[in-house]
């Protein structure tokens, strides 16, 4: 078991390196580099270009040097200083010319919180319903859960978000927008800030969880239905185990495994799925930034976000693989 984990971690290192190279290639794809865009922008605003600043940046990012030198500089800056380059941000947005690392650091925690909380909510709702649906196949409750699930799956997230905002505002006068109230928006993390976040975070969580729940109910129900008819369930029943005990010990445990293997995809799926919701709800998450960065060819920002997200996906996959090795002895090779 330990050997598999160590081996998997060793495999992860070249994967991450490859990933950073691909991200860097993406950054380099559009014509021109960061510096020429920067100079162009300053000139268009009629500002004097500071030669010493230019040569300092040239030195730092290895601009004008061969591509591999630039890549190594970029990686070195990232590993040593946590510097991923700067955002072009020439359109008056809040991340004008800010270091990419700062933008990501600012937005990644909120993204992950929403992602993790909505995943927990999805699992907490979908798994029991899926189990009930499978054990009561073709019952009224089963059909009802399928029906509600499909509605959840069919309503576009952004529309659902708008509807909830409207309902909450119409009923209470509280505008649920953003993750924090104004007074906490720029405050450092504290217990009061967490409480404030909890007041707002349920809306995006609810919206994102609705779609996820519907899908997971289907998966859990199908997985469990497959297992319920297997011979080992009859064996367990023939031992005199009660239905509830044998259900949880055998088929449910085995039906869980495919679900655990999807942990790695949660984050990218959430970032893709929440972009529209975040825009509607004005959330400070990664999704909208990635969208605008790509639209504006803000390549250090876009490339870095892609790299960080992919890295997190790889780590998520590693975690789910380790979980599976632990859960399923068939995967442990001797």
């Amino acid at each position, binding site marked *: 078991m330990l050997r598999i984990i160590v081996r998997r971690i060793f495999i992860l290192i070249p994967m991450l390196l490859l990933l950073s190279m691909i991200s860097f290639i993406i950054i380099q794809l559009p014509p021109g580099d960061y510096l020429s865009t920067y100079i162009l922008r300053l000139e268009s605003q009629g500002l004097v270009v500071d030669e010493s600043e230019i040569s300092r940046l040239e030195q730092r990012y290895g601009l004008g040097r061969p591509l591999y030198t630039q890549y190594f500089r970029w990686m070195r800056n990232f590993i040593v200083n946590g510097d991923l380059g700067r955002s072009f941000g020439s359109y008056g947005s809040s991340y004008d010319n800010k270091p990419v690392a700062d933008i990501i650091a600012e937005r990644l925690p909120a993204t992950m919180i929403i992602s993790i909380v909505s995943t927990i909510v999805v699992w907490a709702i979908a798994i029991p319903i899926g189990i009930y649906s499978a054990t009561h196949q073709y019952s009224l409750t089963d059909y009802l859960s399928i029906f509600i699930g499909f509605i959840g799956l069919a309503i576009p997230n952004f529309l659902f978000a708008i509807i909830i905002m409207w309902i909450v505002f119409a009923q209470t006068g509280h505008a649920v927008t953003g993750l924090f109230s104004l007074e906490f928006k720029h405050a450092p993390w504290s217990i009061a800030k967490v409480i404030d976040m909890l007041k707002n975070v349920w809306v995006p969580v609810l919206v994102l969880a609705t779609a996820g729940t519907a899908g997971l109910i289907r998966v859990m129900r199908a997985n469990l239905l497959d297992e319920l008819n297997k011979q080992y369930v*009859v*064996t367990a029943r023939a031992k*005199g185990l009660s239905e509830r005990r044998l259900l949880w*010990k*055998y088929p449910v445990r*085995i039906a869980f495994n495919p679900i655990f293997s999807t942990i790695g995809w949660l984050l990218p799926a959430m970032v893709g799925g929440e972009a529209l919701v975040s825009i509607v709800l004005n959330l400070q998450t990664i999704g909208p930034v990635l969208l605008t960065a790509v639209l504006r060819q803000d390549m250090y920002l876009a490339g870095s976000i892609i790299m960080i997200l992919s890295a997190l996906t790889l780590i998520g996959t590693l975690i789910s693989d380790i979980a599976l090795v632990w*859960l399923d*002895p*068939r995967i442990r090779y001797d």
Partner: protein
Amino acid sequence: MAPPSESAGRPVIEVRDLSVHFALDEGTLKAVDGLSFAIEQGQMFGLIGESGCGKTVTAQSLMRLVPTPGRIVQGQINFRAEKGDQIDLANVDGTGQEIRAIRGNEIAMIFQEPMSSLSPIHSIGNQLMEAVLLHVTRSKREAYKIALEMLDLVGIPNPVQRMEEYPHHFSGGMRQRVMIAMALSCRPRLLIADEPTTALDVTVQAQILDLIARAQSQFQMAVLYITHDLGIIAEICDQVAVMYLGKIVEQGSARNIFHHPLHPYTRRLLASTPRIGQHAERLQSIEGTVPIPIGLPRACGFCSRCPDRIEGTCDSSVPALVEIEEKHYVRCFLHDERAEVAS
């Protein structure tokens, strides 16, 4: 009309007029249709028949494991529990406390598919100790000891290490040994073996068969052995019942059935088995296929395939199971003209 069972000892289990029906969209499927038999302590009772004749459903009903939409619609399954009191298993709650206390404890079962009968993600020890912990002892150490003894008993080498291993480390024959160990672990009074050697290759079959026979004489269990293999029945069974379309068509001692078969179906079943030393151009087979028991007319079930049928009799009423010779029962108009009374 049931064969009486007052013979030697008192029967461990006595099935009376049992019917199990499946309500399907196509109609009511009569998987088991008025079945009666009894098995005494220490007796090996063979139930034989083609696929789809209701053998497995019979076994499932004794354990109350008939899958939905199957239902026991009539009859009794009188089981004499260890304490001596008799329980009608046909009339207890199918998931209740009463039946669960008997399952795996006083009645245990070995299944046809050793490859899928064990959970792939729980260790052999875990699965083996489960029934013991449920019925025999609460102490894990004691359960471990019993499980270890059982693995040793069924001839699994290196049992201490094997306890920690998982089913995918075991071959089919070894898994079936584990299943037998599991079934024997609570010293059942009745062991149901539902084609336990069908999925195994021939050399392993002989070992498993031998193991079951030895375990039976050691624990003095009643055994219901279900198979479609006549050779096995001949080798190990005392009493044999031949089943066709949910009914017993012939029942008697193994000796009688093999040397003096009376029912045309039994005769053809025996003729279709190849014998060593007998040269045959081609194997005999029984013409036609087993009908699906949905909405069948009131007639002998074998009528459509029977070369000796009496027109006007066999196709208009159901023959009764009659004792033709001592302890030899046949359901056929060729031997007795009595018909079963319409219910």
